[in-house]
């Protein structure tokens, strides 16, 4: 089993994204360091537009995530509704 991870700057824009990730990935753990939050998850991690929109109460384009994205590890599978990190090629 291998972890994938994704990290964001800590701010009010990234908070609903982080909350949505934690809601959709029960096995994920978030580690906060100054200015930075790193979320690790075993095998895969999914980010769903719908969950972020619920948190936010407004429409959200997953591309906006890039404004506060810092780093990630894992292969990306993305479409308009979700963004998945995993080690499957």
């Amino acid at each position, binding site marked *: 089993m291998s972890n994938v991870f994704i990290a964001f700057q800590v701010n009010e824009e990234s908070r609903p994204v982080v909350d949505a990730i934690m809601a959709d990935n029960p096995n994920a753990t978030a580690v906060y360091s*100054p200015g930075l939050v790193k979320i690790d998850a075993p095998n895969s991690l999914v980010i769903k537009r719908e969950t972020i929109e619920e948190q936010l109460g407004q429409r959200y384009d997953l591309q906006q995530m890039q*404004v506060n994205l810092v780093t*990630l590890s894992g292969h*990306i599978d993305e*479409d308009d509704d979700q963004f998945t990190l995993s080690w499957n090629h």
Partner: protein
Amino acid sequence: MDTTVKHPAMNRTQRMLALTRDLAWPVRQPDEVFPARSQEGIRIHDWSALRQPLQPTLEQYWKLQGDKDKRLYAITDAFAQNNGQLGLSDARYANAIKLLLQAFTPIEYSAHRGYARVARQLGLTDAAFQSADHLRHHQVEIHATSHFNKYFNGMHSFTEWFDNHWMLSVAKSYADDLLSAGPFEFLVAMAVGYTPVIGNTLHVSFMSAAADNGDMSTSSAGLTAQSDKVRHQVAGQTLVAFLVQQDPANLPLVQAWIDKWFWRSVRLSSLVAVMQDYMLPYRSQSWQQVWALYVSQPLAKVFETWEPLGLSLPHHWQEAQEQQAHVSHQTWLRLCRYSAGLPLHVWAPNAAALNWLSEKYPGTFDALFRPHMMGLGHQVAHGHRPQETTAPVLCGTCQLPVPGMDGAHALAQAQSLKGRCFCSLPCQQLFNLDADKHSAQAASSAQRHGWSLPAKQAVDSGLFDGSQDEHNFKEWNGGAQHE
């Protein structure tokens, strides 16, 4: 507000392709339009098979980058307006920013130039974005740190030092090597060298630690730069797999570039290692922890997924892992020894720092480095200061000082070897693979031996204890005064 949103007919990837690559007209004679595509021996049969995740369209790109900059400049302005320099953990911290500006900010500019060239040589839209990104990184680092330049020494002439000072030869030669590489080598170098090894350490864990040390300005610049670099990392790694899948002849070429650039980046990361372990008054993770978390573990996993393609871990992977328990301490001791001629300040670590290092490096610090650090502290306490201003012998490949080669005798010995002195076996092997190019580099490093800081810049160098930076910071009553 309940208007039904009509989803566009094309998905994200289709839209991106329709608005970028598919806008270009088919080139009937690609060999004549893009001669550099074939110069390195790489064979591409189907460019359309190259997929680039995270890639925005041009319209999205401007919007995203604009949003990023608006956030960043709000923070850097607030930092400057609020006299952010007074909130630093200590004036020692400013030296990490000096090293960032002197060694890494200029490489960002080289990467901007490199990607611009590659975009034209290969006809690659992504590289044009990446070129603009690196220019942005160069600029935001200068903007974010410019506030410190008003209050601290050691920042005003960073480009001059980058070009001339032996300490920065490791960074300058890295940039020169990148800029003189062919387009595919450049892309592989950025994908497996600079971005994962330097970006993921300097621009992630160090920048978080910078925030902890009261520097929201540089921290925000570093983290927002990394938001572009992560896109480069994804694009670069996709490109490496694409190259190997296109033709069996590409595999040995790509593997050789991986071996070279991973090692060169590892050597360059020595400077990040001292920033992380020695230049942060409020300490966070050790360099070795950062290395494991952000470089070694994720890269090992990437290579595992590349194994079916025939790619293997960089040739000197094991040496690189072993080095991490030593490298920050070795580099710091060397900087201290030559502090009289450096464009920044160094110092003997205090008791708390020594204990923290012992705890973080249980296998090596107490046995190998603590006595040296304590000896240095003892000397400084008794008014003795390192005086050496001449440069040490530099490795023919990575341009870092060769261990044990100090003093006039060693310099003469190195001259007789025409620069063929090496810090390690991997560097010697890399030199032999491209002896002409590295010999030229060694010649330029010989010129650096004849260069020293102009007398008027003496205030920028020497130990931190007794420096103008130390004096000023006390006068302003800045920082937590914890040390």
